[in-house]
């Protein structure tokens, strides 16, 4: 684990943790494994000799997007009592963050086997969606009809060590539209970063400058999208909150407040 973890984030010795961690938590960094099925592929990962189910192949708008072969993945999940899927213990909820540095050793593709057929209909088949749209239709948002001239808060979420990505447009477009409709005078942006407590007691820290970079990037994106009139107040919280292994992912965020 150490090589990937060192490339991924700062590896720190276990910090004092206030309470005994939930024994069902499974937080670890590992190579993802993809298993083919007669339908959509399953994504799995192995930790301490046990196989865990992470997610199915899905769509852009899926709550959990599959990881990448060729990269390790930070898994932050909780062991559930649900029946195994594709041979793996189901982690639910689960948060996945792809490690940016390539790792060619992460290259396991398992063939389909009858015993691992899905016992349920996946959200969509591997080809075109079967009569349903592939994912929610999200046309360009129009300006809200009745805009209350009062401060409104938004939260941008991130993967571990992540900046904006393919999910950003759907989170940031409403901010832009509201600010334009409200003729916002000020936008307050606060960046945060996190630490992640792994099940083996290791703590991973996001990059030290990430809170600042996240906040500044959001301001840059809003200005770049034409929102140049409001005054921007950009700040960041340099220190990551002490990790607890439960909700560490929540601290990977940027808060945006739009003010009239």
């Amino acid at each position, binding site marked *: 684990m150490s090589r990937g973890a060192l490339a991924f984030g700062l590896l720190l010795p276990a910090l004092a943790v206030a309470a005994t961690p939930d024994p069902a938590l499974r937080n670890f960094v590992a190579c993802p494994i993809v298993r083919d099925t007669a339908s959509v592929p399953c994504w799995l990962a192995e930790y301490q000799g046990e196989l865990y189910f992470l997610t199915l192949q899905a769509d852009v708008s899926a709550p959990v997007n*599959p990881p990448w072969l060729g990269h390790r993945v930070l898994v932050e999940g909780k062991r559930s009592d649900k029946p195994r899927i594709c041979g793996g213990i189901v982690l639910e909820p689960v948060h996945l963050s792809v490690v940016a540095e390539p790792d060619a050793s992460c290259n396991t593709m398992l063939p389909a086997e009858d015993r691992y057929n899905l016992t349920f209909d996946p959200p969509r088949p591997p080809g075109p969606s079967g009569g349903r749209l592939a994912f929610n239709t999200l046309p360009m948002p129009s300006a809200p009809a009745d805009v209350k001239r009062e401060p409104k808060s938004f939260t941008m979420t991130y993967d571990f060590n992540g900046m904006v*990505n393919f999910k950003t447009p759907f989170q940031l477009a409403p901010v832009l539209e509201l600010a334009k409709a409200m003729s916002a005078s000020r936008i307050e942006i606060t960046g945060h970063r996190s630490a992640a407590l792994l099940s083996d007691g290791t703590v991973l820290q996001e990059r030290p400058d990430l809170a600042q970079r996240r906040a500044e990037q959001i301001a840059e*994106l809003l200005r770049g999208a034409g929102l140049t009139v409001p005054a921007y107040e950009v700040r960041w919280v340099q220190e990551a909150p002490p990790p607890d292994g439960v909700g560490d992912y929540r601290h990977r965020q940027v808060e945006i407040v739009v003010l009239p």
Partner: protein
Amino acid sequence: MTRPRAFIAIAAASSLLSLLAIPPAGTTDLPDRWWGPGEGRSWPNALDYSNDSGTSRVLLTGSALATRGHPFFEPLGASGRACVTCHQPADGMSLSATTARERWKATQGKDPLFAAVDGSNCPNLPQTDAASHSLLLERGLIRVALPWPPRGADGKPMDPEFTIEVVRDPTGCNGSPVYGLYSPDPRISVYRRPRPVANTKYTTHENFGVLPFIGKNGLPATRDPDTGRPSVMNLMADARFPTLRTQAVDAAATHLQMQTPLTRAQQDAIFDFESRVYVAQAVDRRAGSLTEADGPSGLGPQALQKGEAGVLGNNTTRWVIPMENKWKTLPRGADEAVNARNAARESIQRGHDVYMFRTFWIRDSMHLNSVGLGNPTKRTCATCHGMHLTGMDTANGWMDIGTTNLPWASEVPLNPWNTARPELPLFKVTCKERVPPHPFLGRVIYTQDPGRALISGRCNDVGTIVIQQLRGLSARAPYFSNGSASTLRAVVDYYDRRYNIGYSEQEKEDLTNFLGAL
């Protein structure tokens, strides 16, 4: 092989018309396929031109167009070209390499198409020598000289995420002290196919997937300077211009060498024309008419004319190319000609089914595997080529499938027994330490064309090219932005190799026939 095109057109048309009772498509100007600048011909509502797969049709909505004085058709600049020079109706409103060779032969290289500025491998080469125009003659490529470093939205040089070096340049242009990367006005010359100016309501839609921020990476989308609205960023190989008007202004200044900017009235006239033109294959030489009233509803140019733009077709409700299984199983009888036609139609239908339903593993393709689908993802052609009726991406559509990036780009095998040598430049891109490495190619990338990255300056965009519309393909070989696939079969073979698909020979043939019928 040079096709006797006029005769093919006339013979094929007359035999098909008699066999299939196809009504004439309208006035045609056969056999005069070439539309030269300033000819002043009238552009009718329908133009039919033969190609190796049959006949393509260009529809013009509204009234016929008098081209005399129209800025799309007049030589407005020093190059002597007009827009129509590289957007020929017989070539699906693009330009085929075959046509380029025919123009060279017909004019001994004096046609404005071969203007030194971008119709040759480099302006400093001897212009009367065909070898100086080899990329245009052999691959249908036009030189595009882009500034380095790239310019930001404010027009100022940006600090790109990567450095770039010239590893190889058979054209000599990138090493030229006048035109190259190390010249006083540093530029990178890449060589790209002209894109078809047709079906533009699909390439410029404001429907599904068009947001203020780019769906691939969350960065701000370009915006229409007239309306302030975000653009779909599916124009051109690198999406560097947001609208038809802004593209026309640039093309007039660069390709036409116009000394003054296009006037607003000229822009409007070009926009009006480009918004009215629809192109698709109308007749397949074996399957016959593709536009019969009771045939598949997604074939033929009228489907595009009537269709809704910017709709996701990667589903079994709207479909990418609706065919309604009309040609799934067709009868056989005593008439061998009809039997052969029906067999060809069934092949097109099977090709459609391969396109929609034949899964394979798509791996290490930037802006596909990186946008939430996982790497690899088990999908089909229609996953990326998903826009209803065109097979483009509905959202901002640049992607790296390896056509320009090594190790997947087609390269000449170098060995003592092969006299062929590389034709395209090769660049070494090194992602700077301040950014993560390219997720699938690492920190050092070798590429024939950095694609979108020459505009965005982003490491992850190296080799990404905007997905092309799939209509009128038979009229405009070769394929891919660098002209590396000479036929549609070569396109299919490329995908088979790139993604280790393992298509059967039947699947390859059917898919090729389907693409040829679009």
